[in-house]
């Protein structure tokens, strides 16, 4: 079941919608909105670890989420 869920739900943090973000464990509407705002402000995620900069994403929560998301580039430097 967990594997099936992981296969279905690997989200690209840079394109996921609010609804999709809410499917992540420990992510409700408020946190989904914060993730989207962070993404907007920053011009996209470069690494999954950057989630840790968002208030409400504890190390514990991040560990639950990290295998369910990927980052495909939108913007970046070198």
């Amino acid at each position, binding site marked *: 079941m967990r594997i099936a869920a992981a296969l279905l739900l690997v989200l*690209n943090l840079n*394109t996921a919608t609010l609804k999709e973000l809410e499917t992540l464990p420990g992510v409700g509407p408020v946190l989904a909105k914060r993730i989207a705002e962070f993404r907007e*402000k*920053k*011009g*996209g995620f*470069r*690494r999954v*670890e*950057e989630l*840790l*900069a*968002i*208030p409400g994403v504890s190390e514990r929560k991040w560990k639950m989420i990290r295998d369910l998301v990927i980052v*495909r*580039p*939108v*913007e*970046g*430097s*070198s």
Partner: protein
Amino acid sequence: MKPDAAIDIVRRLRDQGHEAYLVGGCVRDMVMGIEPSDYDIATSARPEEVVKIFPRTQSVGAQFGVVLVIHNGHPYEVATFRSDEAYIDGRRPTGVVFTDAKQDVLRRDFTINGLLYDPVDRRVIDHVSGQRDIQAKVVRAIGDPRKRFEEDKLRILRAIRFGARLGYTIEPATWEAVCAMAPQIHQVSLERIRDELVRILTEGQAAHGVRMLEESGLRAQILPELKWTPHLERSLGMLKAGSTGDFAIGVLLRELNVADVQQIVERLKFSRAEMHHIAALVENLPAFSKVAHMSISSLKRFFRLARFEDHLELARIHAVAGGGDSENYAFASRKYQEWSEEDIAPRPLISGEDLMALGYTPGPLFKEILTRVEDEQLDGRLHDRSGAINFVIRHYPKEQA
């Protein structure tokens, strides 16, 4: 983003007796007068020391000595000065050695990305003549281009991406290496090739980027199905920086047949949603030539395509770049503006339950009746529930059903 928090990180590292600078793309952007979106820091401090200085950190590439530092609510990559050992499989170094600032810069890809900035003394430290190349608008590999590309084959495509993004030309020796090594791009995973291709198309000057892909022979390697045409170049010229990747790929592939498009998007491992959108863009483009003759209901159904704005924009590009005619585009655009969401997809007047209540037996006929009623509604001939019920009773006598 403002550099304040990044500068504060540099200060704190220095207070502990380490060397530290801003490095890479952010310095390039600052020299160019663009506000960077990310700041990276290079330091003499070892990862284990960086972790001790800042309360919130996450190791993101322990083997490369990269630590993500969360400071004032923002993430910053703090990397220890290093030089890379021999590369394996054309992409990853076998190991790294921690070195000094100069060596750290010399291992990087292009001179424009090899600048250090000392925010305390407010000066750029340039070991690679990167400032000269920014002035001259040139992408130049640091050191021997063939060696740099040999280490990491993705750099062949990255040279073109920076050229496209910044509107720069590629310096002759670097260009010669791009052309000579184009066939080796296959050593890079298709996902990475896809990501670079998307970035070449979406970060600015897509036409310049794709022309370089064509002239270097990379296009033939990555997209053998695609033909370079004046149409294509003009179309790409209309692609705005910041477009979504799937839309950009739709513009790139719009003149191919749908079967080739399907094959390409599967090969490049686009996500299901992206594949679907790209194929839909190409597949529905010809329908724009018929919009003026469609019934209102057909046109409204056409407008219900997901992300219809993209379809419309592709039709505009197609018309302006040559190939489509602009009258049909203008007609579709006007209608799309004119109609509200509610006009295009109104609440159904009746449902299957209503049909059952009227005594019809559920079956294939239900769909037919409901579609017909919706057509009448979209065409503006039915406006309310009672009208719809009368319509059904009149057109579908029960004994016939």
